[in-house]
């Protein structure tokens, strides 16, 4: 029993990371119907910003802040230079560009940072803050879950109650109509990229603290899994990404804990196939007719 509880804690911690990254995928898809494959690499950028900030002696909250700001700038610049010129091009062109941007960031990382993994600075003490019998929640796990929850609440409030948030939803529903209502589409799309990238950056630091090993290609697998999480929850739907991420983390952890690690990825991607077969629009998705 305590083993199951502990595995649930582990799964929630991992799942919160997937959820944070999945949010960026889903928001960008929601607004411009683009699967931004470079998103996983933005998460890597966040981890490295955190690494250098902490190595430079900055306190954790400040490093965390920087690790959200700088990836956000990356997102802004990437959207401006790579995706904006293709706004009216066929969707496949933007998709291929996204893969190109992803490869660019990965190889730039290898070139500039060297491909060798680095140990992330351990600024948090290795201790559990909640101990219940044999179940331990370490300070890092606690922070991961709490920070993720806080960011999700903030995001939901932002999307529902601010003017920009409402504009985002409007653009996502009907871009032309939104434009006719006087919404600056380009600005809203930039904001979406900025927010998504900042969340991924936060995930990067949290993973650094949790696992502690970072490398330029760390975003590939996490990005892929988070993308799957976004699809499972229903791509384009914000609560879907949150749920999908947590489900993914729980499924992986429970499979590793009670079956075998070799089954983990098979189960994760099997889950995707299952969802696509039963409910292709994802758990929270509503089936919609293709607009002609």
């Amino acid at each position: 029993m305590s083993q199951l509880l502990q595995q649930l804690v582990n799964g929630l911690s991992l799942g919160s990371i997937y959820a944070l990254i999945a949010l960026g995928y889903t928001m960008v898809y929601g607004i411009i119907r683009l699967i931004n494959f470079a998103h996983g690499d933005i998460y890597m950028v966040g981890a490295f910003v955190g690494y250098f900030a902490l190595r430079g002696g900055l306190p954790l909250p400040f490093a965390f802040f920087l690790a959200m700001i700088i990836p956000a700038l990356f997102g802004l610049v990437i959207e401006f230079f790579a995706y904006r010129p293709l706004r009216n091009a066929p969707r496949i062109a933007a998709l291929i560009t996204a893969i190109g941007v992803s490869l660019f960031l990965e190889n730039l990382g290898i070139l500039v940072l060297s491909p060798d993994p680095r140990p992330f600075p351990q600024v948090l003490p290795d201790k559990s803050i909640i101990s219940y019998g044999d179940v331990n929640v370490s300070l890092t796990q606690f922070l991961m879950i709490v920070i993720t929850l806080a960011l999700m609440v903030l995001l939901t409030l932002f999307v529902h109650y601010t003017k920009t948030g409402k504009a985002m939803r409007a653009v996502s529903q009907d871009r032309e109509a939104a434009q006719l209502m006087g919404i600056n589409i380009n600005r809203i799309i930039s904001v979406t990229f900025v927010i998504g990238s900042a969340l991924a950056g936060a995930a990067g630091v949290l993973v650094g603290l949790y696992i502690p090993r970072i490398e330029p290609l760390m975003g590939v697998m996490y990005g892929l899994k988070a993308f799957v999480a976004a699809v499972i929850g229903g791509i384009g739907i914000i609560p879907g990404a949150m749920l999908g991420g947590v489900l993914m983390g729980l499924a992986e952890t429970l499979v590793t804990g009670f079956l075998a690690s070799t089954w983990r990825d098979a189960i994760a991607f099997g889950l995707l196939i299952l969802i696509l077969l039963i409910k292709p629009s994802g758990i929270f998705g509503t089936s919609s007719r293709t607009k002609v």
Partner: protein
Amino acid sequence: MSGKSNRTLWIALVLVVIAVILVLALTGVFTKGGGERVKIGVVVPLTGPVAVYGEGVRDGALLAIDEINEAGGVNGIKLVPVVEDNKADGAETSNVMNKLITRDGVAAIIGPVISATANVAGPIAVRERIPMITPTGTAIEVTLAGEYVSRTCFLDSYQGSVMAKFCREELKAEKAAVIFDVANDYSIGLKDVFAEKFTEYGGEVVEIVSYTGGDSDFNAQLTRIKAANPDVIYLPAYYSDDVLFLRQARNLGITATFTGADGWDAQELIDGAGELAEGCYFTTHYTPTDPSEGVQNFLANYQEKYGKFPIVLAALGYDAAKMLADAIERAGSADPEQIKDAINSTKDFPGITGMITLDENRNPYKEITIATVKNGQFELVTKLRP
């Protein structure tokens, strides 16, 4: 034919002749008396997760080659090392092996470093009839590729059984758990031997869990181990994973003693894990506290040349190069076939990692060191024969 085109033809011909002469001069056909040279391939990972091992082995081998050349070479033949990075990757290993053999024309190869890549390189060496000495590939299959493949390190099976014996007899462990990397031959081999021997010595293996190389979140596996409540945890993995396991185990409140194999022996373990590495035990090849002249000379020369302390695998790289030079000297020739025969008859070669005698499967038989971490330093615990 007009006179003009005739002249063009002549100029072209003269240019070709000059080019040929230049090429011949550069490749050394005309340089008589410059001394015979023989190229030695060094295949090591210089990038990726085990780059530290690769650099160590390379530095050790190059130090040995420098020492040999400074002393006048082997029977007057100078050794020319050609270093290639195999990125610890199978496909890349195959590429660099082919490049070294067909393009550089090496007479022998030192490397690769990890067993998984040595298993790829071995069959290529056998096919091309070029002797290969892996300094550090400890999996049993490596030398079974054929008589061109030998090694300077002990076998995984010896490491696994020595650690099982140590856990039972010295640490008095009743229950052991094993964690291994399913994507790594080295880790799988050690897991099998340890589990078998630990049971044979009267202990109980309570849990065996796997992970896949490249993973970094091991909380699920460690939670399962914690539930089995072992006295010792055997983790035959490389230092970068070891650090993650130690840290995550501490966060889960696991107090069992971690034990491991020679993959633990890197300064990065202590740098990365800090005090978490204290009191862990692992099997390894030699220890720098050995007072013998060979070891102390090696340490002094290495530090003079590279300005840092050698990792243990550097000593194996050094021994591999010295063992190869010894074979070339006894063969009296740089012919790969004769070098191979000489390597295979190596007997009581005084390496710094122990006396090396190759058996019929070209595996050395030697003592195994058990080391621990104490006050941020590696320390010798004992030496055991398998």
